């Protein structure tokens, strides 16, 4: 008998008999009832507590904020996609900037060394965020591959202020994750960190040392209140 069949047989022919499965009440992980503003405040507080930097921008001029972040952080080479509106708008705005744009729509095998050693920042969109934990959710695509948010020392993520949910459970339920998962789904909450050396927190151990979240606001009201 194969290992598979032997294991399943032992589990099925359980000595103490079949088990009954209890029902689950998920109330404790949902139903927070936060307003849009509260979500933003919570998101910013939590991601800030783990060294994520949040900058706010109006939808129409978020690329100005991006340009400023790039200058402030001394980014010379920025890796980004080509098709997502975030990438399209960024490329258009940065055409005359002092920053070299690095195409990411190449198989990693062709440019691994370059990506590891010679890219200062990766720019990605996000699908949304979670207020309760200050987490971004990303579903990498061919246009924005998995390693762009991991390998460069700085990850810049663009988040729409409207796309926050209260909890992780709410994200999974409201966005129907169970009916179609991508190759890789990610929650990202801050830059890479470790406390393996005597409980001392250090950032940037394997992934980015810094994470900047540009939150885009459709109207100034939410933007200004979240800024306070």
């Amino acid at each position, binding site marked *: 008998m194969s*290992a598979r069949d032997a*294991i*399943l047989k*032992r*589990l099925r022919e*359980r*000595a*103490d008999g079949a*088990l*009954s*499965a*209890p029902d*689950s009440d*998920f*109330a*404790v*992980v949902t139903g927070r009832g936060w307003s849009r503003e509260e979500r933003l405040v919570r998101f910013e507080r*939590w991601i800030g507590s*783990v060294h994520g930097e949040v900058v706010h921008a109006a939808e129409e001029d978020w690329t100005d904020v991006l340009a400023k972040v790039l200058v402030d952080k001394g980014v010379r080479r920025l890796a980004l996609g080509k098709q997502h509106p975030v990438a399209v708008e960024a490329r258009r705005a940065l055409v005359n900037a002092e920053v070299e744009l690095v195409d*990411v729509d*190449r*198989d*990693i095998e062709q440019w691994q060394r370059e990506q*590891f050693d010679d890219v200062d920042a990766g720019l990605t969109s996000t699908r949304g965020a979670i207020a309760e934990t*200050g*987490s971004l959710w990303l579903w990498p695509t*061919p246009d924005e*591959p*998995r*390693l762009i948010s*991991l390998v460069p020392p700085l990850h810049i993520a663009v988040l729409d202020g409207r796309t926050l949910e209260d*909890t*992780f*459970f709410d994200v*999974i*339920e409201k966005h129907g*994750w*169970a009916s179609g*998962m*991508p*190759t*890789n*789904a*990610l929650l*990202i*909450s801050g830059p*890479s*960190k*470790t*406390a*393996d*050396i*005597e*409980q*001392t927190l*250090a950032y940037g*151990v*394997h*992934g*980015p040392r810094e994470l900047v979240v540009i939150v885009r606001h459709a109207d100034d009201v939410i933007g200004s209140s979240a800024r306070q």
Partner: protein
Amino acid sequence: MSEQTAGVQTYTPREFHRQAHDALGNPQIRANFRKAMDGLMAKRLDSFDDWDLDALRELGANIRLRALARLPDLLEKLEANCEANGIKVHWAEDGEQACRIIRGICENHGATSVIKGKSMVSEEMHLNAHLEEAGIEALESDLGEYLVQLNQQTPSHIIMPAIHLNTDEISEIMHDKTGTERTRDVDAMTAAARQQLRERFMAAGVGVSGVNFAVAETGTLCLVENEGNGRMTTTVPPVHVAVTGIEKVVEHLRDVPPLYSLLTRSATGQHVTTYFNMISSPRKEGEHDGPKEVHLVLVDSGRSSIYQDNELLDTLRCIRCGACMNHCPVYTRVGGHAYGTTYPGPIGSILSPHLMGLEETRDLPTASSLCGACGEVCPVKIPIPDLLVRLRRESVGEGRGNVAGAGIKRTRKEVAAWKGFQWLATHPAAWRAGTSVAGRLRALTPARLGAWTQHRSAPRPATTTLHALVKQHQAAKTDKEER
């Protein structure tokens, strides 16, 4: 569990008493653990501040129970969904078989170097030693595991592998083994390790990781981490092999958030980890990175035998947060290595006997004061103290005999002593006569009574038995009343 390649510092559960004794005499170990565990306990409590912790633990326990109740069906569903997503699923009866499967995958791809994310199952089955024998180098990439591996040790905690080492010791290890300049600057040490390991990620032919939750509904493997080494391991090399115990499966995707909330808060007091990495397939057509092959190795290794018994089954609920060890007064004092097992602390004491048999691990169920802290903090409400007592019973042959090595501690002397006590305690006349004789012969009690008298004086029977005292008291009372 201690037999590893030559040069590796070894510990064995058979030597628990000696190892615990040595650890207790090592002020460095005691200080390192005390400091770390105090911090972790406080942080855990803070992190649950806003929560209805009872309701969340209840849900966590109930999700795990549901998964176990449907385990064979869910494993089949997981397999079917993973395969449909392009993930190749393998089954292994034991660690040895799992090691061979993983070695085979490496050899098929001509891989001579493997980069590893944190995986306790791979520690349990000694994967690194197995691969090294086959000429394949396996390098740990979790910073703590990397340091422990450089130091030729094994992890002393399931979440924080290098918790037994302090900054100076780590600086010395990095200097000795990698030529890193000595420093007390943690950022500088971290940066050095980052540089060293990035080269290895690029060079590795295969990445091996563990799995925190395997979702049957979608065929998704979930990994919880802070460092990003898990994402590197599962994304950079051309092949990813995930290895996990068969009990890690959950039914639905919606079962994941409550367990994740419990895991990070119980483990390190974090409200969330930096990364939650959910992998459902290898690189698809048109995608530009990620492994071209993903394998899942499901390891039984004694788990299906734990599964047979209604009480022992609870052991399999564990989500490997380590809260039980963080709160254990024994673990905090003797540290993780003293146990001599892959899983130390209370969870190790209830799990290891099944993985290694009670003959090897006979002292572990007694490595507890039964204070109950482990059971109180367990995020999935495993009644750890009850299970410790059950294993104590099994080890003296008073259980159901469902554990390998049951009855190993049974001695004729002890059995006779308890039988004698039982007879005496149920025969009042004999009991009174016996205790009265013991009182009269009290001068003859030995001054040394083995372990009991190491730190205490030997007990002596009282001159007058309690029975006699009560009788005297009552007689005096009646006297008074009559007068």
